[in-house]
């Protein structure tokens, strides 16, 4: 942490940084050690290989999956469920959040029920969605929709509410009307919060797809997971886990990148 009080008399020659940064080296070593341990554990009798599989087996399973497991089909199903649910939620929650966020009365009225729904896990409605909408993709889309709207509405409203009063006042002094202020000050100012809401929504959306498909489904990445899980094909299960992790990570990274771009122009 660099907290040492370095002696004032230290003669320090300029230090050239050798190759990769220390953190990367340590991280890679840790992962490598972990993989080695994992690979060696079952033959050594430390764990039951049926439950934990091994890196080499997982690699082989990955090859099989990519070659002939209808990966494209299942990915497409899961992706559609996520995308449709997310897009619908986005289309509903952003306008609502923007408009409601401006009115203090609306906020006071809606904060309690919205917060309650935001905190509560939307997945509790999964069983009833299955009953109403069947075991196909419709129920998953609904679950994603429910998971995504609340973080976005709540954070969008918060963003509109947290507008910098000084900016608004300055704009008014130059003659800006309410619409101008809404479009040019409030919305840009709310972007960081909106993006945060979107990132949280993405997390919940992915969770919704996965849990929904694990629960009951006919196709999709989660469907594959549950099939292999029940038949104890842990190697293939883990391949699908990695695939979903990758997508989830890619999506959230993308939103984080957007957040980073936007954060730069917000005053510290």
């Amino acid at each position: 942490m660099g907290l040492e009080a370095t002696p004032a008399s230290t003669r320090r020659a300029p230090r050239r940084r050798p190759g990769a940064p220390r953190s990367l080296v340590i991280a890679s070593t840790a992962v490598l050690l972990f993989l080695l341990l994992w690979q060696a554990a079952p033959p050594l009798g430390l764990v039951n290989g049926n439950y934990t599989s091994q890196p080499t087996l997982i690699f082989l399973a990955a090859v099989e999956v990519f070659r002939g497991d209808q990966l494209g089909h299942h990915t497409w199903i899961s992706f559609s469920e996520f995308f449709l649910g997310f897009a619908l939620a986005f289309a509903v929650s952003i306008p609502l959040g923007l408009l409601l966020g401006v009115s203090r009365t609306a906020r006071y009225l809606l904060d309690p029920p919205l917060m309650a729904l935001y905190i509560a896990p939307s997945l509790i409605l999964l069983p009833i969605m299955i009953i109403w909408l069947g075991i196909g993709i419709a129920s998953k889309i609904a679950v994603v929709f429910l998971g995504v709207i609340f973080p976005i509405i709540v954070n969008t409203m918060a963003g509109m509410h947290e507008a910098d009063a000084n900016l608004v006042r300055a704009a008014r002094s130059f003659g800006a009307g309410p619409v101008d202020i809404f479009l040019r000050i409030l919305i840009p100012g709310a972007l960081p919060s909106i993006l945060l809401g979107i990132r949280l929504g993405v997390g919940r959306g992915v969770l919704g797809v996965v849990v929904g498909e694990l629960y009951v489904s006919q196709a999709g990445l989660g469907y594959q997971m549950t099939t292999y899980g029940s038949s104890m094909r842990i190697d293939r299960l883990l391949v699908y886990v990695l695939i979903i992790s990758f997508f989830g990570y890619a999506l959230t990274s993308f939103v984080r990148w957007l957040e980073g771009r936007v954060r730069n122009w917000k005053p510290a």
Partner: protein
Amino acid sequence: MNHVDIRELCVEYTKPKSEEMFTAVDRVSLAIPKGEFVTIVGPSGCGKSTLLLAVAGLIPVARGAALVDGRPVTGPGRDRAMVFQEPSLMPWRSVLGNVRFGLEMQRWSDGDLDTRALQFIDMVGLRDFADYHPHQLSGGMRQRVNIARALAVDPEVLLMDEPFGALDAQTREIMGNELLYIWERDRKTALFVTHDIEEAILLGDQVVVMGVNPGHIKEVLKIDLPRPRRPEIVDSEQFIHYRRTLRNHLADDLASMQLVRRDG
């Protein structure tokens, strides 16, 4: 022997992106007798704060040394206490808790720490606020706590880095006069960095003028005003003369910082 002796001090930084070496302080030498209040002025980037941090032992020194009572500075020590521009008070501790902090770190064992802390809280005029927390105090009050904390550990040398820089002009004036009053009691050797010329003259026995590129001492001005210094002294002829002299010394550096083009 001088109380504080700075000999050919050099401080270098590595610039974060380019890995170039940047000299913040270049061969600065300064001799300070015991009990003298030395103020340091200069434009931004002249290394005055860096110099202070080096004497405090908080940053490494590339070449040269700082000595206090003949002993070289190798790190923070009981003989020096620093007052930073930001109060750096622990928000979760009360005023009393904050003033005690230095004593706790230095493991003072004689007597009750609270009693000693209260003494200094009283000295800076905050006796009624001992139980308040920093967020309940104004900027000026927080700096008073900062000063009390430094005085409480009874340092031989007081190091102050633009302590009133973040305050408004009126508070700054008040704090300057209060500091004079408090300092008069023990007359500790002090190094005081400021960008305010008048403050430098009012408080100091010597004013050190530093220049930029790289940080070095341009001039040392001896201030021959009688002590104790009264606030009215700023209107005296002597004071005005000193002010004019200092402004001249700083003129070129100030001119180089101007951006709006002037004709002629």
